[in-house]
């Protein structure tokens, strides 16, 4: 399918004084896409959103919406709307008047009966029928969030920009709103650009995710790509793949001859561990490499258990963290190397693991993910 670009950034840079908030970003977001900007606070994700919305203007580069350069357009001329982190509902207006705010502006000339009808529809879309006469401070956080959404969506923007809209909600409500947002996006078929620091949120809703750090994109891809094959140490760490092994290649498949892709390589880590990994290409002996291994890929059994894995080591449990459905075990292989494993709590209970237990742990070559940058 050949979809048109909805929002395009071309080498966009934004400075605040000496701080480089957004550093030479280029990106194309497609029409109807649910795109997330994911990163820790201060990574420039909100600034990027405000640049697209027109609340900030770039120092360098171009911003395009629907193929048109909008650099100099003020926010009120842009075909984008923002759902703010704190909702920014007008406290002096009722819910209905908040939602109708944009439609009632003189520049739009929407006749009043039409406004009434559209507001009613918007209230239905976000399941707030009958609350139109209330003031924002008479609503719960979740309801306020829906009002903010309705107020932006009623204008049928080409792009909806959402700045951590679920940040202030409790966990259960957040889950429900994630599903709700996805439903609404399918229903209205508008490009959503979603800023969040919560990887679960980004994973569960997005078509594509851009992981940001220091005003740069670390990696852009589908949730699966970002989760399963993070390209940098930062992304791996941010996505919770906390085992990062760095070392040198001591043997590579097809060394000196024809090379298979992905390659199977044997590496020796800095701490003296010998590991078999798979991934990448064109590696030869002596090359420095880094692998990440997700904690849930690492299996832990008692020493006398009969099992095999490409990489299998003896270790000792030095930490245990019960997380409900899963349990995290920290296993020391030697003085200075510890591996984090996440196993089903059910399995943990079967074995009755406790701190100090001597165990064997292991993972397969395919579970190693080569970090390329």
């Amino acid at each position, binding site marked *: 399918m050949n979809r048109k670009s909805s929002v395009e950034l071309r080498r966009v840079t934004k400075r605040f004084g000496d701080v480089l908030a957004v550093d030479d970003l280029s990106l194309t977001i497609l029409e109807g896409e649910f795109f997330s900007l994911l990163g820790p606070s201060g990574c420039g994700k909100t600034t990027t959103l405000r640049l697209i919305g*027109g*609340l900030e203007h770039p120092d360098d580069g171009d911003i395009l919406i629907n193929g048109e350069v909008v650099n100099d357009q003020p926010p009120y001329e842009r075909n984008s709307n923002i759902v703010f982190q704190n909702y920014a509902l007008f406290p002096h207006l009722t819910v209905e008047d908040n939602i109708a705010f944009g439609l009632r502006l003189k520049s739009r000339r929407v006749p009043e009966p039409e406004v009434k009808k559209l507001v009613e529809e918007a209230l239905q879309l976000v399941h707030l029928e009958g609350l139109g006469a209330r003031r924002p401070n008479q609503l719960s956080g979740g309801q306020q969030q829906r009002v903010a959404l309705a107020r932006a969506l009623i204008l049928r923007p080409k792009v909806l920009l959402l700045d951590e809209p679920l940040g202030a909600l409790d966990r259960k409500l957040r889950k429900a709103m994630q599903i709700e947002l996805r439903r609404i996006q399918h229903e209205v078929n508008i490009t959503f650009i979603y800023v969040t620091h919560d990887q679960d949120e980004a994973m569960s809703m997005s078509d594509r995710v851009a992981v940001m750090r220091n005003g740069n994109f670390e990696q852009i891809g589908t949730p699966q790509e970002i989760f399963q094959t993070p390209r940098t140490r930062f992304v791996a760490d941010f996505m919770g793949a906390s085992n990062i092994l760095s070392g040198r290649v001591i043997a590579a498949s097809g060394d000196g001859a024809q090379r298979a892709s992905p390659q199977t390589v044997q590496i020796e880590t800095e701490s003296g561990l010998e590991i078999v990994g798979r991934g990448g290409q064109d590696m030869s002996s002596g090359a420095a490499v880094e692998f990440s291994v997700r904690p849930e890929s690492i299996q832990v059994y008692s020493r006398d258990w009969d099992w095999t894995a490409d990489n299998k080591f003896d270790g000792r449990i030095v930490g245990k963290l019960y997380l409900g459905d899963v349990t995290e075990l920290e296993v020391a292989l030697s003085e200075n190397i510890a591996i984090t494993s996440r196993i089903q709590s059910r399995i943990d209970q079967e074995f009755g693991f406790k701190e100090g237990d001597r165990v064997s742990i292991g993972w397969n070559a395919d579970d190693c993910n080569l970090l390329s940058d």
Partner: protein
Amino acid sequence: MSRISPRLLTIGCGAVYLFMYAPLLVLMVFSLTPTEYGVAWEGFTLKWYRAVFANKNIQDALKVSLIVAIPTVLISTAIGTITAFTLYRYKFLGRALYQGALYIPLVMPDLVIGISLLLFYSSIKLDLGILTILLAHISFSIPLTTLVIIARMQRIDRTLEDAAMDLGADEWTTMWKVTLPLLMPGIVAAALLTFPWSFNDFVITFFVSGVGSSTLPLRVYSMIRLGVSPMVNALGTLIVVVPLIIVIIGAYFDRRSVS
């Protein structure tokens, strides 16, 4: 035991209020008794109030006071709003200096303000009268209105204006539909605080008023010079009670603006 007993606090608090309001109570009590001279209660009467309302001089003075106070409120509140907006919203050279300078008239002795205004008006050959009183009142009210409105402005969430612009409102529409309505409680509070500020002023007005332009406080002062009449008690009671009511309304609006 080091606990402070609530009873002790109540008694202490009562003593403080008595100290503050006892003189006023004495004034009010003697405005309701026919005693001509001296301080003894000789039964209830409203005759001094009737005398106040029948007195042409007092009526004229009240008229002057209102002719000054009402435009003072309107003009200084409007200027205060614009000044507050400029000082709070825009960054420019010397902004901190301008903002700091607002406090100077508030702490400067009235005597100094009065003398300097008098000097100023005579140096530009402006005849003393209602106009000079009005100009003086506006000038000393602007710092008050500006500071009250800035205080309100600091409580307005800036993202509300971002939101309005994002929804399609240009700068002017945003100001009319979002900023000003949110600022309104502060503007009303400023106006209601300015009224007694102008109405009660004596010292500065004393310097800048001319013949036939006595405000009410000046009139009271000249009445006392001819001997204390209980009519002054009645007038004093009225001057205290009426602005008090206005201040209470002002405080109510300011409190409402917080919630």
